[in-house]
């Protein structure tokens, strides 16, 4: 199972960033996210898997696809990436990956001796609303502000029109 998911994730990840059709990219991304949620299931984090599926795969990707539809032709093909750019980027990415992997493999992880906690919804709910140690009510509150702000921000930026249609003169000449 793990092998399947991981192969899927890696392949689709790479496809996401290399395919020349934008909608396909979105689809591959969706697949990556879905396989990730499969991993979460494997890890026994069902709640997270669900969140991943709904919020990530469902929410964000849909958002992305909408925006693609707004801004591009579906069949639009990208021009191939400049060779120099792709080589250097790949080089950077590969160096980084090798560095990270070598470093990770170099490190001896030691598993906790304490007993695992069964993650059920109740526990999650309690933790989320707890003000004690390991309680997450404060981030929960703050993230709501963030969501509010993001909403307002998105609206204000994307909203069309306004009282003044006149384009303000562009004073900037870099």
């Amino acid at each position: 199972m793990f092998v399947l998911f991981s192969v899927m994730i890696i392949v689709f990840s790479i496809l996401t960033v290399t395919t020349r059709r934008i909608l396909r990219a979105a689809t591959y991304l969706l697949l990556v996210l879905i396989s990730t949620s499969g991993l979460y299931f494997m890890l026994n984090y069902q709640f997270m898997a669900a969140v991943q599926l709904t919020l990530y795969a469902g929410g964000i990707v849909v958002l992305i696809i909408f925006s693609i539809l707004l801004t591009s032709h579906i069949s639009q093909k990208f021009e191939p990436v400049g060779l120099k750019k792709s080589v250097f980027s790949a080089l950077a990415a590969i160096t980084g990956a090798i560095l990270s992997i070598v470093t990770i493999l170099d490190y001896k992880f030691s598993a906790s001796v304490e007993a695992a906690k069964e993650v059920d919804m109740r526990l999650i709910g309690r933790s989320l609303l707890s003000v004690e140690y390991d309680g997450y009510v404060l981030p929960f509150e703050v993230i709501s502000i963030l969501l509010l702000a993001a909403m307002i921000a998105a609206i204000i930026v994307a909203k069309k029109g306004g009282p003044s249609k006149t384009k303000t003169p562009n004073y900037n000449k870099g």
Partner: protein
Amino acid sequence: MITGVPVQYFLILATLMFFAGIYGFLTRRNLITMLMAVELILNSVNINFMAFNRYLYPHKMEGMFFSLFVIAVAASEAAVAIAIIINIYRRFATINVEDVNEMKY
């Protein structure tokens, strides 16, 4: 806990995904695909958190919660970014990142 799969595998998987995202961010010309690359990056980080939490620190849920919040943040980030991208599209009539370079030097 998945028997036979050490935590390192997860980490390597996430790392590969992470750098795939990085590569995408650096090469994709379309702003939206860049955004997608960012999502890849965030997703890979989430895998890390989850795997660590499950393998090494299963008695607490910090990693998991972190992932949860990362997803939320990613969502809002995506929302704002897409709003701006739409605005860019209106202004520049393109969402090719290489054309969005009026300011330089």
